[in-house]
């Protein structure tokens, strides 16, 4: 097997083994939330970012901190508040006096310069501040005062959203929502999980997380794993399948308003969706499908992978109209209906 940046390219088996090990380390601290943890790691290896939504106390911040520890990567946390400014995230130019006594503007790096960034309660900051993350998330670089500063890979943003206490919050703009690969929901733990949380967090010993990689190799190893993900083969038919699914979320392509024979007959989309998923949704489907394929020991994406990843990859990219809100319909419901429609349209 070839090498990438001096690190041996992992095999399909290595990927699944490392992934399961990381899961195990995180679950030493995080009780339950198996699907959330898996999706978090999938987003990491797919090269995307994650938006975590959950009520207070469900372990959002703990989950992100534990992931940072398990990956042995640099980790920063930004608590988003109303008075947070973009420069507080990206960094700013300050006047510093050099050794020769000369004063000069120098760029003071903000918390965005790390491998794992936790934006806690991102919807409490103003849209201007929220948008400060856009460039970093999409292009792994920050531009301050007309100068661009690259971020070190891997760069992984995890933002948390509090669905309650909406007073004084700023819903994330669609452009920013679209930049998150997955949206992960953290629900309340059940009784058994709650008992385990109590016993592990109120005892004298704290659970220790053992890093999966040495500090100096960690970033490279993770990048090698990300490269492996990109090499998973997606057949053209599967890419078409993902494209169809994304188009099916767009009301303009619904069978009710389109004569295209490929249009999906999904009344729910036409009734409740204002804007469907962007092309980034199709990218998320394929990338997530590739990670799932590797976890299953395959070098190819299957339709099952795409269907399984669709709720996390598409639900936050769909803008619903007022009728959907009044009828209690959410994005996950729409995606579920679309997946079923697409699945049933497959040849027998």
């Amino acid at each position, binding site marked *: 097997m070839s090498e990438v940046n001096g690190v041996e390219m992992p095999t399909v088996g290595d990927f699944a083994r490392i992934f399961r090990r990381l899961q195990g380390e995180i679950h030493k601290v995080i009780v339950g939330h198996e699907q959330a943890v898996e999706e978090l790691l999938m987003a990491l290896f797919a090269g995307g970012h994650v938006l975590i939504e959950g009520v207070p106390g469900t372990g959002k911040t703990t989950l992100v901190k534990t992931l940072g520890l398990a990956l042995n990567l640099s980790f920063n946390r930004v608590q988003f508040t109303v008075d947070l400014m973009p420069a507080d995230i990206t960094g700013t130019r300050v006047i510093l006096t050099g050794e020769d006594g000369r004063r000069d503007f120098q760029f003071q790096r903000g918390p965005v310069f790390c491998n794992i960034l936790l934006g806690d309660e991102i919807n409490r900051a103003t849209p201007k501040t929220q948008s400060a993350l856009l460039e970093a998330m999409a292009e792994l670089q920050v531009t301050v005062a007309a100068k661009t500063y690259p971020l070190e890979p891997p760069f992984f943003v995890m933002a948390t959203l509090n669905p309650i206490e909406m007073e004084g919050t700023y819903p994330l703009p669609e452009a920013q929502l679209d930049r998150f690969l997955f949206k992960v929901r953290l629900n309340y733990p059940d009784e058994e999980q709650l008992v385990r949380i109590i016993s592990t967090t109120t005892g004298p010993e704290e659970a220790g997380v053992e890093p999966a990689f040495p500090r100096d190799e960690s970033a490279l190893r993770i990048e090698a794993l990300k490269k492996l993900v990109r090499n998973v083969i997606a*057949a053209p038919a*599967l890419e078409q399948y993902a494209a169809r699914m994304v188009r099916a979320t767009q009301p303009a392509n619904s069978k009710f308003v389109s004569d295209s024979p490929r249009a999906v007959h999904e009344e729910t989309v036409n009734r409740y969706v204002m804007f469907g998923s962007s092309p980034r949704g199709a990218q998320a489907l394929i990338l997530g499908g590739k990670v799932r394929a590797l976890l299953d020991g395959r070098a190819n994406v299957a339709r099952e992978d795409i269907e399984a990843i669709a709720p996390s990859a598409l639900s936050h990219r769909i803008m619903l109209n007022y009728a959907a809100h009044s009828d209690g319909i959410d994005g996950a419901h729409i995606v579920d209906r679309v997946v079923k429609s697409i699945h049933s349209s497959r040849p027998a």
Partner: protein
Amino acid sequence: MRLNSLAWQRGAFGTLGWTIAIGAIVVLAAFYLTPLTFLIVAATLAMVAAAGVSNSVRAAWRAHVNRGAAASIADRRADLKGRLETIVEIVQHRKVVKLADPYEQPMLWSYLIEDTLSRQEEFLPRRVEARRVSRSIYGFLGSLALATAIFPLIARLHGKPFPVSADQNEMTMDLNDLHLRAGDSDSDDGTEVHADAATMRRLEEKMAAEGVAAGSKSSDTPMDKMINHAKDLAGHLQDKLTGRTSPRPRITLKLADNSEEMNSLDRRNQLNLNPNRKSNPDAQFEHENNSKGDDLSKLKNLPRPPDQMAQPSGASSSEDTNGGRHTGSSDQSSDKSSQDSDAEQGNSGSSSHGVGTDPDTLFGPTSDPKLGGQGFEISIDARSETKGPNASGHAYLPPKVRTPLNPSQHPDEPIARASVPDEDRAAIKRVFER
């Protein structure tokens, strides 16, 4: 290969099954149905067969798969999670030469091939599709069984003439019961009419009154022509299918004129002064029939001329089988009348009513030259009616039945006026004055 073989088997078996089953039913229907009914049934069955065959062919076309679709099916059935489909798709979209080059092929290509080959046992053809013969063969066998069951019946009936019963062959009708309409001169299925000279004259008058000319080509509308052509077509088709060369049996209709009889009966009934005659047509009808029966019984006891007695009973049917338009001469009509009366002696009394109401004109003059030129043939729609019109031509009216009211019903009578109390009179007066 196996999937496509099954698809084409499905199309072939479906097509053959529909064709055989519908064909057998059509041939069977040709023996039992009249031409127009046969035409409608055959057309309907043909449409059903066309729809069935079309459905089978379309299903076969849909089931026909290319390599990619076959790989996808194999993936699903062998739970290969898209491995085969991916390989086939990649090979189809990229050149194999490129894939053979290690620098051109995807990094995980060799892994995918090895991984898939390691599962070769799971996607062997017999595991992906165990059947070699399509299930549609059951439908084909079913249609064969149906055809086999029908075949003995068809073989038994093939080439035999139409069954003729005495009841269908001869009918006796009152002239007043007939509704005349013009028949199709091209049609062979006319009805021979026999009656005495006076009745024939009355028939002529009736035809003239109703605007029907003897021997005229009456059905001039395009729709009628089309229906007649369709009937001819269906008849020819039936003849071919059934192998019957003889035409359909023709009905010999014996006409009777009740008006003269009614006159004589009226004269007799005037003496009886029966008050229920007008109000009870049934009783009147029965009475007339009984009277006719008495007359007939008297007539049947009369001695017959030797030539009439010696006339063979099958003469009428032998004439019919010639197929040509029959123009009845006076001799023939009288001969037939005598045959009919002979036949009626052995038949039930129901067919004898109205025949020869007047003993003087029952058989007509044996050689009337005028009648010889007046014989003709018409098409008649005859309907059996249990309550036919009476001799005077009035429609039958059912007797009025008085059903008792149930306890919650009241007779349709005005409600008696109630007296207004004195204390309310002033108030009511005020209201109406306002």
